[in-house]
């Protein structure tokens, strides 16, 4: 399942980059995120809860930064499982920051997500919509964090 999107944010790229790479900022912006712990220079652990209709799931995720080119590109890989190990999720992610002519930043992201196990049996259409919806919430939170409006 491929998820992609982009949004503009009225803040300079360097500042956006700093916030994007700050786990404490991210934990407050990612919907359902219950904590991010940095394991080493490139590895993080996190818990994220997702609810789709009557289905609730909490994932223990490991995020590895595969490569980064400050201040514009991060390639990362997320893998994780539900607490009961009934579902496994993994994704390859690309995040890019580009400067806009107005001095803001265009943030674009792509993720190729695969989910197997119990939740993988659930119709794929809704998960994509849910992901888009969560991305929307993230953008709002992130903008709020940077103190800029939409």
């Amino acid at each position, binding site marked *: 399942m491929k998820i992609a999107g982009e949004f503009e944010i009225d803040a300079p790229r360097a500042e956006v980059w700093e916030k994007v790479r700050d786990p404490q900022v991210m934990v407050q912006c990612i919907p359902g995120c219950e904590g991010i712990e940095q394991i080493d220079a490139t590895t993080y652990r996190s818990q994220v809860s997702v609810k789709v*209709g009557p*289905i*609730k799931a909490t994932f223990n995720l490991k995020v590895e930064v595969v490569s980064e080119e400050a201040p514009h590109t991060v390639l990362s890989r997320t893998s994780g499982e539900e607490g009961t190990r009934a579902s496994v999720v993994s994704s390859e992610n690309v995040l890019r920051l580009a400067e806009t002519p107005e001095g803001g930043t265009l943030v674009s992201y792509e993720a190729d997500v695969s989910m197997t196990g119990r*939740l993988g049996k659930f119709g*794929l259409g809704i998960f994509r919509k849910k992901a888009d*919806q969560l991305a929307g919430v993230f953008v709002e939170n992130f903008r709020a964090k940077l103190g800029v409006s939409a």
Partner: protein
Amino acid sequence: MTELLFPTTVEEAVALLAAHEDARPIAGGATLVAMRNAGLVESTHLVSLDRIAGLAGIVRLEDGRIRIGAMTKHAETASCEMLSGSLEVLRKAAGMIANRVVRNMGTMGGSVANADPAADYLPALACCDAVLTIAGPGGTREVSILDYVEDWYETALGEGEIITAFTLPAPYAAASSYRKIARVSGDFATASCAMALEADGQGVRVAIGACGPGPIRDPEAEAALCGHLGDPEAVATFAKALADQADPVDDVRGSAEYRLQLIPRLISGVLNDISKETV
């Protein structure tokens, strides 16, 4: 593991839902038990609504409105003669849910609470201007069906709230129809359309299902369409207005593009069905 609780009043049910953090109401069970069997939902407490007196059944109120109890089975709704004229669309939609056996189990409250965007009741109720009665810890409140679905599987139902009834305006003389496109008989809709057309050919209500998180209705566009039903261009403009509000998924039932294609075709198709019926 799960405990199953059997309240006998709405108040008791609401209190039980409030008392246990992970409690869920269970109505007919057609969806919830299937999801439990698939390991998709787990909860510590199930609050069974089947022993609460007065939650099932369809009655005509003194002012002519129709009230459908939340625990009314699809089979009863599908054969209820009070649902005539403008409300016949609801009867027709109920008769197209799954199959006869499942219609003996599933309830309107359960279906609407689950808010599957591809289920049949949402567009039909939207077409009927239904009002939901919701009971919860804070008492009872009423919500228009048009305000009910807030996002994908997210509804106006708060923690510990249950739907107790659906109230429909008094039926008026109209031809109404429900059509769903589905891969096979009894499948959830790929896309669906509920329509009621006043006898004089003036008033028209249209709701599209399965093309977004909730049913799509546009009263303004309906008003503009009034009196121009015979004009293909007006119908096309109307259809475009609804399609513009759609946000369909891509899934195993069809692509988002296909669903967008279906919206105008369904609207013309149902108009055609109705005009054939009324001739």
